[in-house]
């Protein structure tokens, strides 16, 4: 906003543009090493949610033949072949809770996907006489951070790629009921927030003064809430408490914010407008690199990578496909010979991007293994199929390792509720719980994961 900031920003961008040209040839080279110690079994356990939009085609996604461990990857997942032994592929898990509540199938799917809750009645036009609001509870990453309290600089990290629409069908992460968390869509902004925070380099006294001042200011601001709380309704108060909670969270991070991160990856490239279709792939990969770096540096343990939004108006121009937008393709009829190959191409590309994430995690050594060994990746989609808006038989994937997950498997359930999968994920990350989200849709952890 300020001239100073703008200049700093522009300078950084210019610098990064130059530095980036070298980095392009050698991706991942400068990723930091994971914090877990060699010879120890006690590494941090991490979660990365990976989201792709608008459903898939399960008939080309699901593994074929064989058994739980002996199967051939479905054609749409071929780019993940090299990680076959690190995956758990799910058939027969339904997003049943998204069948309830107001709003359209994309809205309901997004709101329920990581919260396991029914979408609330709110101010969004649902068209059926009711109005859709936001998710009815917190997403699992936020709950994990709150319950496990690993003490990292950032409780959670939300990175997005072209998440343009600030509406329910564009939001995945929720701090709490009706409290969506927007992802950061610009890798340069994310980088600055994560790794380039310092404002008083090399001057401990100035840093101490800055910290003292900021603490005093936040203390004074905290005092303002008490008077307000006394006057307002419970509903009003909940709104104000969001602010107070965010300030407490900020207060805890003041020290980290005022100091340079010792653990530093390469800065991302400045490719230009992060919302441009043409840079979608570059931005996505830059965000993945940042997420992996943040995990390696133990700045956070719970992250999400949201690749655009449901109902996105995104063409894969970076891949030479200029005619169709992703959401339109997802609606093509099964027999539409001109559009289905394009849709397959999009779906394959997302599989490739997931493979890029897994490769980036595997490239970071940690202890005797790699970051992938200690990171659970949960790949999700708000629909099973685009042209029917189905929430049955969702294309969920778990990848990597944490908590003893047995991978290299294809698991088939008979209409299990995805809430149970979310419970399992929480268990794998070390949070003992038997239920998550709406209790009517939860029976406890899925069997057979460990």
């Amino acid at each position, binding site marked *: *906003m*300020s001239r100073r*900031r703008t200049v700093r920003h522009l300078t950084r961008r210019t610098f990064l543009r130059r530095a980036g040209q070298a980095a392009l040839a050698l991706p991942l080279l400068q990723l930091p090493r994971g914090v877990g110690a060699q010879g120890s079994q006690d590494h941090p356990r991490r979660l990365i949610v990976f989201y792709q939009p608008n459903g898939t085609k399960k008939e080309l996604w699901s593994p074929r033949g064989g058994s739980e461990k002996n199967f051939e990857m479905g054609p749409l997942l071929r780019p993940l072949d090299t990680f076959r032994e690190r995956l758990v592929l799910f058939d027969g898990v339904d997003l049943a809770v998204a069948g309830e509540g107001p*709003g*359209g*199938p994309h809205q309901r799917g997004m709101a329920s996907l990581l919260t396991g809750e029914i979408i609330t009645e*709110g*101010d*969004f*036009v*649902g*068209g*059926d006489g009711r109005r859709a609001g*936001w998710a009815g509870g917190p997403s699992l990453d936020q709950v994990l951070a709150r319950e496990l309290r690993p003490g990292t600089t950032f409780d959670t990290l939300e990175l997005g790629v072209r998440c343009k*629409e600030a*509406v329910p069908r564009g*939001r995945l992460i929720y*701090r709490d009921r009706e409290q969506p*968390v*927007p992802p*950061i869509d610009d890798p340069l902004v994310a980088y600055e*927030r994560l790794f380039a925070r310092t404002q008083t380099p090399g001057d401990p006294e*100035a840093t101490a003064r800055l910290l*003292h*001042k900021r603490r*005093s*200011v936040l203390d*004074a*601001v905290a005092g*303002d*809430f008490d*008077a*307000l709380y006394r*006057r*307002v*309704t*419970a509903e*009003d108060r909940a*709104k104000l408490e*969001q*602010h*107070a909670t*965010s*300030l407490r*969270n900020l207060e805890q991070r003041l020290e980290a914010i005022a100091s340079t991160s010792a653990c530093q990856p390469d800065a991302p490239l400045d490719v230009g407008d992060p919302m*441009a279709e043409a840079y979608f792939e570059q931005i996505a990969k830059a965000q993945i690199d940042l997420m992996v770096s943040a995990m390696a540096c133990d700045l956070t343990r719970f992250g999400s990578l949201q690749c655009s939004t449901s109902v996105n108006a995104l063409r894969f121009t970076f891949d030479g496909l*200029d*005619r169709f*937008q992703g959401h*339109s393709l997802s*609606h*093509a*009829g099964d027999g539409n010979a*001109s*559009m289905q190959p394009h849709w397959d191409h999009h779906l394959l590309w997302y599989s490739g991007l997931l493979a890029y994430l897994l490769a980036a995690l595997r490239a970071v050594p940690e202890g005797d293994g790699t970051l992938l060994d200690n990171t659970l990746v949960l790949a999700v989609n708000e629909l099973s199929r685009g*042209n*029917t*808006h*189905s929430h*049955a038989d969702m294309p969920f994937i778990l990848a990597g390792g944490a908590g003893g997950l047995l991978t290299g498997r294809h698991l088939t359930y008979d209409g299990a509720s995805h809430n149970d999968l979310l419970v399992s994920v929480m268990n794998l990350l070390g949070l003992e719980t038997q239920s998550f989200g709406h209790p009517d849709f939860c029976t406890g952890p899925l069997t057979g994961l460990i």
Partner: protein
Amino acid sequence: MQRTVRSTLRPLLAGALALGATLIACEEGPPPGEQVVVPEDVRRLPAPPARPVCDPEAALDPGAALPRRLTRLEYRNSVRDLLGLDVDPSIHFPPEEQSLGFDNNARSLQLTPLHAEGYLAAAEDLAARYIERIDSWMPCPELDRGVDAQAEQRDCAARIVGELARNAWRRPITEAEQSRLMALYDMGPELEGPAFEAGLTVVVEALLQSPNFLFRVEVGQPDPARPGMHRLDDHEVASRLSYLIWRSTPDTQLQAAADAGALRTAEQLEAQARRMMADPRAREAWWTFFAQWLHLDELDGLVRDPSYHPGFGEAQRRYMHDSARAFVEHAVWDAHDLRRLFDGPFRHPDDPPHVGERRGILAQPALLAVTSTPVMTNPVYRGVFVREQILCAPLAPPPPGLAVVAPDPDPNLTTREQFAQHSDDPTCAGCHVLTDPIGFGFEHFDAVGNWRVQQNGHAVDAAGELVSTWDADGAFYGLDELSAMLATSAQVHDCVATQLFRYAYGRGEGEGDACTRVRLVERYVDAGYDFEAMVVALVTDPSFGLRRGVDE
């Protein structure tokens, strides 16, 4: 239902009505995995949305008033008017979550840790810049700023702090608040630089991060005449007015009126509202309402594929924006008649002479572009736009398990023919009969708003039909006829009032708001469809200074 349709639409409607299965597509369907069961009597279109009915006997229900966080625009305007600094803090803050198309919905506005970080950075930056310019606004210019004059400096600081806090928080401050702020000022000597300036800088930082600045909290006092309701206090009313009309903080006159208790009668409120509407800030602020309502804000970052629309770039986008804004503002501020928003004439410089004038906002290139894809028009988008934004008639979600299919492109067909093929599928047509025939009426205008009579070697057919409205049902040809139908439709003007209501109150309308909405429309229609009259009706309505009571 018996319907008379023009032959061009017959295939679509016939397809829709031929099978009993059709209109189920517009209603909630069965859960996933179950077959769509076809009821006997589904050969009907969905009813138009209900008209608001005001029961004059019913008790006033002013609705809740959740604290409203300042939006990025409101933050920017407020610091401009408070500190005289015109900067864009938006790079610090995440974008607003939106509801009902507006960015100022109280329930949807969030304050995440990312926001808190942004507010910290912005406050420090603004405070430093404000204090750098201290000599331009110092109320005690004779003050000795040396180290020996600390007592005098503190007296002056107390004045500055009291006035700044009062302005930033938009109300008189308490003694406890003043002393809390002065305690921050007293940190000055511990900080870098001269103590007086350093102390004031810390105070400004705290003011701008306080919930008293970042939120508009409306509490008021129980109204003895209206049990269960609170009457907002005068300063809360002043803020309601200023953030409605200027999207900024109250000015000196408004504050003075609040101090004097002169924001209570309808006459007082009307006088303030009319004064404020005449201020240039009003034009700027109301543009955000129209831009969001009419999706014109989507021009930012609008992409057209060069292989389909060569040469489209910033210059054309700028033209689209300026043309649409000038057109909207003419209807609002010059003609004082919002019917002209829908049917007012204008000329597009690139139109061939025989086209003559275009009519209405729907024919503005900006609107034609934001309702298209990068490569082609989309009659569905355009139809949905008219139903949801202009008629306030939202569409039902598609039922689970129903295939919803995009058209198969064929370079030898017109867009209309491509979409019509798919509307032949009765399961699609059930819903698409509500949207596509509206969108077909736009077909003389391509995805950048250029006029066309032929597409892919075929003549463009812009015959369309409106169905399922209160009072505007009927066939039409092209946008001029559609716009003329909309301009005189009571449903359209009721929808304008609904949109204004949502924007003004930062929430969706409820049953208790029916009388307010009816009164808004009455005053607006009586005044010849003058938008300003509707704004005046809003701020002088009995519900304006009230909120539902505190439930404790």
